[in-house]
C-alpha cells in the first residue's frame, strides 16, 4: 500500500478532488431544489424528481466542461513545457489524460441516465396534473396563468389532450435532449475498446458527433421550462401557509390574504460552463490545422522487412525532443484521418523520421502508396511534436527502457540521442546508466534496428564507456532450430541472430530478477521505468516497481511511465 501511494499520489488526489466536486454539486443542488420555498409548488407537481433532474443536470454541466480539456494536446504539451521547474511526478500525470477523458465520459453517461429517468417522471406527472379535473392543488396550479400572454405559468404543458411523447418532440429541451442523447450513445458504442482497436475510423468519425452534443447542450435550457416562484410573488404569497387553501387565492379573506402565485424560469446556464473549454478546443483544432498546412518534404523512404516503412522528413521550424510523437495525415490515403507515430530520429539530426508498421487499413494503404514509387511522392501533413513520458528519460539517474516489438520506437530516438551526445562529449548528462530491454517475436523486425545497436556498441567501446548502456534483447518467438543454432555457436564472439556482441536471450525476461538486480546495483538511486508495449506487460512492470521501491526516500525508488496510444 505504501508503495502504491508513492507512485500514485497525484492522480489519486486529482480523482478524489473531481469525485468530491461531483458529490458536492449533486448533494448541494439536490437539497436546494428539494427544500427551497421557491420550488414548493413545483415539487407539489413533481415530487423529488425535480431535485434529481436538476442535481444531475449540474453534474452534467460540470463534466461536459471537463471532458474537452484532456484532449487538447497542444495545451497539455504547453503545460508540460512550462512545468520544467515542477517535480517529475506532476509531469507524469499528463500521461493519464486519456484515462481521465474516459472516466469523465462514463460519468456523463451515468448522469445522463439519471437525468432522463427523472425527466420521464416529470413529463408524465406534469401531464397528469394538467389532465386532472378533480380540483386538487396540482390541477389548480396547472391551470394558473395558462391563457394569459404573460410568462407566469407553472406547468409547461398547456393542453389537456396531449401525451408526454408529443410534448417532448415539440419543445426545445425535449427535442434537443433526445438528439444529444442519441449522439452520446453512438459515441459511446463506437468507442468501446474492441471497436476502437480494430476499426479506428469508425471510432474517429463517429466521435465527431460531440459537435452535435455540445451544440444541443447549449440550446437545451433556453426554453426555461423549469419554473420556480418569483421573488416578488413569494413576498405576497407564502406557499407553506397558502397551500392549504388554494380555492381562496386572490380573494380577500379575514384570516389571510394570498395572491395568486406567479412563476418564472431559471435561466439557461450550460453555456457558462462549456464556453471556455469549447473556445480552447476550437483554438486547439485551428492550431492543429495551421501546423498541418506547413510544407513537409519527404527526403527519404525506406521499406524494411516485416512491413515497416521508414519516412525521413524535413519541415521548416520543426524542433523535437527525445521520445515525442507526431500526427501524420496523408490526403491521398484519407483526407480527414490523423494517426500518431513516435519519432525515431534524434533531436541532433537534421531530419525527423518515423517508422510505421502495417497495423490496419490506413497504415497498409500508406505503405502501399509509398511502395508504388510514383514519380511524385504523396503529400504528407504533420502535426506536432507532442511530448509524452520518454522526454523524461534523461531526468532519471538510472533508466530502464522496455520496448515490445514496434514499441521500441521512442527508445530508438533515445539511444540515437545518446550516441550523438557521446560524439559531442556532453558531460552534463544526468543519466548515469541505461538498461534497455527489447522484446520481439521474430528476427525480421530486428533488421532496421541492428545498425543502430551495432554502431552504439562500437561507440561505447571507443569512448571507454562500455558499461553505460546495457542492452538485453529477448526473442520471444523462438523455435528449436534457432535454439539449436544458438547452442552450436555458443562460443562465438558475436550473436548468431543479430551479429552484435551482446547475446540475444530467448524467451521472456523474468522481471523480478531484473528488478532485483537493478535495485542491488543502484541502492540509492531514483530509477525511471519506461514502457512502450501491451497492457499485460505494463501490469507486471508496475507490480515490480511497487514491489522493489523502498519507502525510505534515500533508498532506491522505481517510477513507472507508460506510453499509450
Amino acid at each position, binding site marked *: 500500500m505504501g508503495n502504491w501511494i508513492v507512485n500514485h499520489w497525484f492522480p489519486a488526489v486529482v480523482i478524489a478532488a473531481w469525485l468530491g466536486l461531483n458529490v458536492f454539486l449533486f448533494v448541494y443542488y439536490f437539497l436546494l431544489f428539494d427544500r427551497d420555498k421557491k420550488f414548493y409548488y413545483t415539487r407539489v407537481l413533481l415530487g423529488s424528481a425535480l431535485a434529481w433532474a436538476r442535481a444531475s443536470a449540474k453534474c452534467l454541466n460540470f463534466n461536459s466542461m471537463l471532458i474537452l480539456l484532456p484532449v487538447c494536446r497542444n495545451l497539455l504539451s504547453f503545460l508540460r513545457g512550462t512545468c520544467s521547474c515542477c517535480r517529475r511526478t506532476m509531469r507524469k500525470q499528463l500521461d493519464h489524460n486519456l484515462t481521465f477523458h474516459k472516466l469523465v465520459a462514463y460519468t456523463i453517461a451515468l448522469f445522463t*441516465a439519471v437525468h*432522463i*429517468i427523472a425527466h*420521464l*417522471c416529470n*413529463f*408524465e406527472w406534469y*401531464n*397528469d396534473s394538467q389532465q386532472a379535473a378533480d380540483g386538487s392543488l396540482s390541477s389548480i396550479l396547472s391551470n394558473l396563468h395558462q391563457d394569459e400572454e404573460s410568462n407566469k405559468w407553472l406547468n409547461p404543458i398547456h393542453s389537456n389532450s396531449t*401525451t*408526454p*411523447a408529443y410534448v*417532448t418532440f415539440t419543445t426545445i429541451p425535449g427535442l434537443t435532449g*433526445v438528439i444529444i*442523447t*442519441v449522439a452520446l*450513445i*453512438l459515441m*459511446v*458504442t*463506437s468507442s*468501446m475498446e*474492441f*471497436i476502437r482497436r*480494430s*476499426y479506428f*475510423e*469508425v471510432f474517429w468519425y463517429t466521435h465527431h458527433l460531440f459537435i452535435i452534443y455540445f451544440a444541443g447542450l447549449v440550446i437545451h435550457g433556453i426554453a426555461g421550462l423549469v419554473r420556480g416562484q418569483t421573488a416578488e410573488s413569494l413576498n405576497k404569497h407564502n406557499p407553506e401557509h397558502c397551500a392549504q387553501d388554494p380555492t381562496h387565492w386572490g380573494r380577500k379573506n379575514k384570516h389571510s390574504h394570498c395572491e395568486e402565485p406567479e412563476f418564472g424560469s431559471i435561466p439557461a446556464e450550460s453555456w457558462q460552463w462549456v464556453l471556455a473549454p469549447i473556445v480552447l478546443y476550437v483554438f486547439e483544432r485551428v492550431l492543429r490545422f495551421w501546423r498541418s498546412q506547413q510544407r513537409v518534404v519527404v527526403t527519404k523512404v525506406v521499406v524494411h522487412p516485416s512491413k515497416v516503412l521508414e519516412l525521413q522528413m524535413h519541415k521548416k521550424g520543426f524542433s523535437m525532443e527525445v521520445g515525442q510523437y507526431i500526427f501524420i495525415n496523408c490526403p491521398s490515403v484519407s483526407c480527414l484521418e490523423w494517426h500518431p507515430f513516435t519519432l525515431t530520429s534524434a533531436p541532433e539530426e537534421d531530419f525527423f523520421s518515423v517508422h510505421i508498421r502495417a497495423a490496419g*487499413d490506413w497504415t497498409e*494503404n500508406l505503405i502501399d502508396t509509398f511502395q508504388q514509387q510514383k514519380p511524385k511522392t504523396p503529400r504528407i501533413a504533420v502535426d506536432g511534436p507532442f511530448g509524452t513520458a520518454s522526454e523524461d528519460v534523461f531526468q532519471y539517474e538510472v533508466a530502464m527502457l522496455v520496448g515490445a516489438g514496434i514499441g521500441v520506437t521512442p527508445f530508438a530516438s533515445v539511444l540515437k540521442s545518446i550516441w550523438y551526445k557521446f560524439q559531442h562529449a556532453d558531460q552534463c548528462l544526468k543519466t548515469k546508466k541505461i538498461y534497455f530491454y527489447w522484446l520481439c517475436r521474430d528476427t525480421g523486425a530486428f533488421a532496421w534496428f541492428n545498425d543502430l545497436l551495432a554502431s552504439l556498441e562500437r561507440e561505447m567501446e571507443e569512448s571507454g564507456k562500455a558499461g553505460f548502456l546495457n542492452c538485453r534483447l529477448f526473442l520471444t518467438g523462438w523455435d528449436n532450430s534457432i535454439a539449436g543454432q544458438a547452442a552450436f555457436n555458443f562460443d562465438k564472439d558475436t550473436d548468431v541472430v543479430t551479429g552484435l556482441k551482446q547475446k540475444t536471450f530467448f*524467451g*521472456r525476461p*523474468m522481471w523480478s530478477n531484473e528488478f532485483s538486480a537493478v535495485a542491488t546495483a543502484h541502492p540509492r538511486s531514483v530509477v525511471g521505468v519506461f514502457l512502450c508495449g501491451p497492457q499485460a506487460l505494463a501490469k507486471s512492470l508496475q507490480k515490480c516497481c511497487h514491489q522493489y521501491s523502498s519507502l525510505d526516500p534515500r533508498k532506491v525508488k522505481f517510477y513507472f511511465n507508460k506510453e499509450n496510444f
Partner: protein
Amino acid sequence: MGRIEWAMWANEQALASGLILVTGGTVAVAAQFKGWQFAAYAIVAGVFICLLEYPRGKRKKGSTMERCGQKYLTAVVKVFGPVTRNYYVRAILHAALAVPAGFLLSTILGTACLGIASAIYLLAAIRGEEWNPIEQKPQERPQVGGGTIKQPPTMPPPRPPPETRKKQPAEEASQENPIPVTIEVGGVGR
C-alpha cells in the same frame, strides 16, 4: 474504410439498445405511467435482444475478444442456424422489435437506438457479413518454470539414462526405489 466489419459495431449498438429498452421499460412500469403495457413489452424485448446480441460473432480477420461468459449463449444462438447467422434477418427483426416501443416516451430512446442498430446490420448484410460463433480452443498444458522449460522431466531423480527408460521400467530399471515415489511437476531444481 476498406476492412471494417460493420456487424461488430451494430452488435455493440444493439446490446446498448437492449439495455436502454429494459431501463426505460422498468421506469415506466414501476411508476405506472400511462401506456405502461408498452413498457412491459419493451422489457421483454430488451432482455431478448440482450441475450441474442451478447455473444460476439467471430471476426473474419484477426482474433476476436470474447465477452465474459459468452460461450453458454453462443451454444444457444448457434442452434438457430441460418436465422441467427444471417444479418438481414437481424436487421428486420430489430426494426420490427423497435416499433412498438416507439409509442411510449420512456422507451422511445430504445427505439431510436435499436433503429440505428438495425440500419448498421442492414449495411453489414449488404456487404456479405455473417455471424459465426467463436469456438473454444483446447486447454493448454500449464507452464512450468515461467514458460522457459518446454518439457519438464517426468521421472524423479536419480534417473536412469534414456536408453534404459525406453524399455519396460519394471524389468530393466537399474535400481529399485525402496519407498513408492510420487511424481510432482515443478519439483525440478529444488
